């Protein structure tokens, strides 16, 4: 895209974000905050799956780790939520490193399976450690800010989301991002050129998991109730569908996909909780026939805007 258009779009986006709390009712403000959470989740999962080709199923689990650690820091150590979120992020990073070092060497489908097993195990532990986690009842935690305001929660989450997107954008454009894509394209060739493939893959896994931890922590403190639901495969598949439908391996894809599907689910929620299943099927269809998702379709429609890519 031409520079000027990027600036215009960013400016428009900022404008919308700034006035949204002033014009939107409580319900749509809540939806907008959920959108921000999903944008963070999908964009960080995309960094891993879309740029290094590692399909991990533990992304929701790391959001859960961030949420629970941060929540427990607030309850048991009276840490302010924003400080707790940092601790949650750090724990997600360390666990991401451990899990990454353990299972990334296996690669491919084995990574998917082990991360799936990890997240289910963690969910069961949280379900059962009632004394500490309050199990399925959920953990009541303080609001993300010292005072209750949905509008300010929105501004906070919006700022963090923009920051996160900025970091992801920088990573993609950096040497690290180039190494990510080299490993995704052909790891044998990358290794022959001096790239330490396992290190690169673990790095992507840790960065992505850390970001999920942050998103989860903020989400938990916004809801003021953290349940094992956040670690569920339901959330995982929703994030996966958002990324794929929006455009796997494109910067804008997960953003578009997250907002689109979250708003859409608000409209179709009345038909029951089957929507994730439907999204999953659509995602499957898209990954087969339009691997770059909605963003890819847009690029095909307006190729001139994208001449510089």
């Amino acid at each position: 895209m031409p520079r000027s258009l990027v600036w215009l779009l960013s400016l428009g986006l900022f404008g919308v974000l700034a006035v949204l709390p002033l014009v939107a009712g409580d319900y749509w403000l809540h939806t907008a905050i959920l959108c921000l959470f999903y944008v963070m989740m999908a964009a960080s999962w995309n960094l891993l799956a879309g740029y290094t080709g590692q399909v991990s199923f533990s992304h929701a689990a790391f959001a859960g780790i961030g949420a629970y650690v941060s929540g427990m820091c607030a309850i048991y150590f009276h840490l302010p939520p924003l400080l707790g979120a940092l601790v949650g992020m750090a724990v997600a990073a360390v666990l991401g490193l451990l899990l990454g070092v353990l299972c990334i060497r296996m690669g491919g489908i084995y990574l998917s399976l082990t991360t799936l097993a990890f997240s289910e195990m963690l969910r069961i532990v949280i379900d059962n450690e009632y004394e500490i986690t309050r199990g399925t009842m959920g953990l009541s935690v303080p609001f993300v800010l010292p005072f209750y305001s949905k509008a300010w929660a929105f501004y906070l989450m919006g700022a963090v989301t923009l920051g996160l997107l900025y970091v992801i954008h920088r990573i993609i454009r950096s040497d690290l991002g180039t190494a990510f894509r080299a490993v995704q394209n052909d790891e044998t060739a990358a290794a022959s050129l001096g790239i330490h493939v396992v290190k690169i893959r673990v790095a992507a896994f840790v960065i992505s998991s850390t970001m999920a931890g942050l998103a989860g922590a903020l989400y938990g403190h916004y809801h003021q109730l953290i349940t094992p639901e956040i670690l569920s495969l339901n959330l995982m598949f929703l994030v996966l569908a958002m990324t794929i439908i929006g455009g796997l391996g494109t910067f804008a894809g997960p953003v578009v996909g997250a907002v689109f599907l979250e708003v859409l689910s608000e409209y179709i929620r009345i038909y029951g909780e089957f929507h994730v299943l439907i999204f999953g099927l659509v995602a499957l269809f898209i990954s087969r026939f339009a691997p770059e998702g909605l963003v890819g379709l847009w690029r095909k429609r307006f190729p001139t805007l994208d001449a510089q890519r």
Partner: protein
Amino acid sequence: MAFLDVQHVTKRFGGLTAVADVSFQMEQGEIVGLIGPNGAGKTTLFNLIAGTFPFDEGRIVFDGEPLNGLKPYHVCRRGIARTFQITRPFLEMTCYENVVVGFIGRDGFTGETPERRRRAEEILKLVGLDEFLHTQARHLNLINKKKLEIARALATRPKLILLDEVLGGLNTGEMVQALDLIRAIRDRFGVTVLWIEHVMGALMQVVERLLVLDGGRLICQGDPQTVVRDPRVIEAYLGEADD
């Protein structure tokens, strides 16, 4: 001590001995050809030097240090680069980015610098891909993919480059260019070259020495003119023609 010293190296795949007790040496600055019939073990020998496979017996010493047990990325950082017989460019990346991966592998995350840009452009120009700087590798034809592999190998600043069949499918004009390129790799970059090739006529114009593998064994080595007249070599190739 020799620059590359391969000592009694053996590699088995199950019951098949793909490389059998191979020993040879190379001096710095040499261009050496590696020939042999299909399935002789040439590519496997490259894979052993490059660290793709561990070997069962023997020792490889490069530039004074053993390579045994090193992983490919490590061998590359020691100064050995390679191309692949079946090309493996990074298809979804531009030619420029392909070359940058070589810089990153060798020098780490330095970020984009004017110096790196200049060197990338210089290398791509040398191999004749300057007009495809920002073309994705998947749009290149086979010949250009091979050139791209040489370019990104050069980006790792190798002391030794392993070329695995780079001439197949070239017409006469392209062949002349390719031979000039391989000479330039040695003369301008001071890179030692070990080169597998089936196109004998062209190979003979450039190499200073030939190694001949057959059935995993090094059956003959030496001056190209002498080697191609050696009865064992003729036998090996005739055997292939009979199949």
